[in-house]
């Protein structure tokens, strides 16, 4: 029986976030908080592996109290248990401090039930780093497997997993000892529409919430802002390039003007264009 922990985060939906053009700050309230889209795939993969090999799926998040909502979303996808670490002391954490806090929580979860596999999303859409997963792996001394887009096999008996890692121009097939940590790509699966059974379970679900004091042997200096080596010194709006020439006229004229632009670069087309004509 596998015990899989999926790390998940609640994030502002950066697709619809609004910016204050004067102060360059984000109006966080303008964007609804959602489960990080990549993490939904992480949870779904955990649930699929559970169905394939048997076991339980726990999800873990570090975040403010409203992040309970994100945990419920994971229960809808099919997770069994949700853990949340929430404390002011965690606030302002960068990836290093985040991976430290999550590691401490995973150690505590392992005491409840040993952990065989950890799955993270490729990245969060607010942090955009993809560094937290490998960070956790290193701290727990597990092999980090990033960019996983397929889990071929898990052999618990013999203690190994075989996965595909996406590369720029293909993929590689990796065998790793277990326990290990994977961060998964979006294309690894499609998250299906949740069943009513899961919806009802999620609506009733109360996660297990821990504060710093609940985590054993934790070094407070490594938490939150204090424990973060990186700091954001300046924030500004990305510069927008300024516009060029508009090609006016009726569609025929526009196409012709464009053609003339292209013909100025005709050396680019010589071979292939000729083949086609």
């Amino acid at each position, binding site marked *: 029986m596998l015990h899989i922990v999926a790390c998940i985060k609640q994030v502002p939906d950066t697709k619809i976030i609004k910016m204050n053009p004067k102060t360059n700050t984000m109006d966080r309230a303008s964007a609804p908080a959602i489960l990080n889209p990549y993490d939904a795939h992480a949870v779904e993969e955990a649930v699929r592996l559970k169905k394939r090999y048997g076991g339980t799926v726990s999800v873990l998040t570090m975040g403010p109290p409203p992040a309970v909502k994100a945990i419920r979303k994971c229960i809808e996808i099919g997770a069994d248990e949700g853990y949340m670490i929430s404390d002011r002391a965690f606030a302002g954490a960068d*990836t290093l401090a985040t991976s430290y806090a999550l590691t401490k929580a995973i150690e505590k979860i392992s005491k409840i039930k040993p952990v065989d596999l950890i799955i993270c999303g490729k990245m969060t859409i607010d942090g955009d780093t993809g560094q937290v997963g490998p960070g956790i792996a290193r701290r727990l001394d597990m092999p980090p497997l990033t960019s996983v887009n397929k889990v071929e096999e898990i052999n618990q008996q013999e203690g190994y997993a075989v996965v595909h890692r996406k590369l720029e121009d293909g993929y*590689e097939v990796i065998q790793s000892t277990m326990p290990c940590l994977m961060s998964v790509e*979006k294309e690894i699966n499609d998250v299906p529409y949740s069943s009513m059974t899961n919806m009802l379970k999620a609506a009733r679900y109360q996660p297990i919430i821990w504060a710093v004091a609940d985590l054993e042997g934790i070094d407070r200096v490594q938490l939150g802002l204090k424990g973060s080596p990186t700091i954001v010194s300046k924030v500004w709006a990305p510069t927008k390039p300024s516009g*060029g020439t508009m090609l006016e006229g009726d569609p025929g004229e526009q196409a012709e003007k464009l053609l003339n632009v292209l013909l100025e670069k005709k050396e680019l087309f010589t071979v292939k264009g000729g083949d086609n004509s």
Partner: protein
Amino acid sequence: MNFEDYQGIWVFIEVKDGEIVPVSLELLGAGKQLADKRDSELAGVLIGENVKHLANTLYEYGADTVYVYDDPIFKDYRTESYMKALLECCQKYKPEVILYGATSTGKDLASAVATDLPTGLTADSTILDIEEDTGLLLASRPAFGGNIMATILCKKYRPQMATVRPKVMKALTPEPGRTGRLVEETASIKEEDIRTKVLKIVQHTTKKIRIDEADIIVAGGKGLGNQKGFQLVHQLAETLGGAVGASRDVVEAGWVGHHHQVGQTGVTVTPKIYFAIGISGAIQHIVGMQNSGLIIAINNDPNAPIFQSSHYGIVGDAFEIVPLLIEQFKQAFNREVVDHV
């Protein structure tokens, strides 16, 4: 930690199929500027099997020193072995800055190394600078889905690390015959300590031109309506001999595969000509193509932001303009070919 002990700008050199990955050369170019500002040395860290000879190329592209770990154990990239080598090198020679390409390999390695050192790591930087006197690295990157740019500092730890997007920095013009110092090292890692094995590597063998290498890219967006409408993009790409690109919304709608996605969460491209057809021009898309040589936008909304970022714009219906263009182009080309003969 005594900051004085940490000197020099390093670039992790990624090797693929026996060749240096372009982003590593780009980073040498960026690293050179930082090193000059700090009046310090630029070094490449070269890990792999049979890679030593690549050092010469690195010198030509600006490296003063190359640390090389050449051993069969490094045949394939694996986090544990590469990390061990780099960590040992770091501990021995103490660089001030390490840059990595933001590729699957570079990001994987950098995250692991940062945790073990430990130190701060800035992901996906697009602008790099360094404070001349303090050596503080100013690594700037898009954040919150590209809505803002942020400069990230690491004040309390050395080395300072950043991964940098491919195609953002410029490689130097190689200086043939330029040489440097080769430092050969061996890592203490043994095969039995490594818990992962690469069973096989599968390369996509599609004949299609890869978008990050294409001279011409015809990219389409949600404005093409549906998968059928998107065929227009394929047609134009075929006529021009270009590769097909797409916005994220198109990829998410499943009209075309993931590796066609241009932009912040896709590929950064710098073709000589980039067509944006039915693409609104969201900032996340723009950051992935803004350095293209010639950007041509076709959109029926005169206020579409894409026009702000293009050299030539056509306000009009793609379904009208593009077929006309294809036809005229074919005709013109026949003429041209004939003229040449």
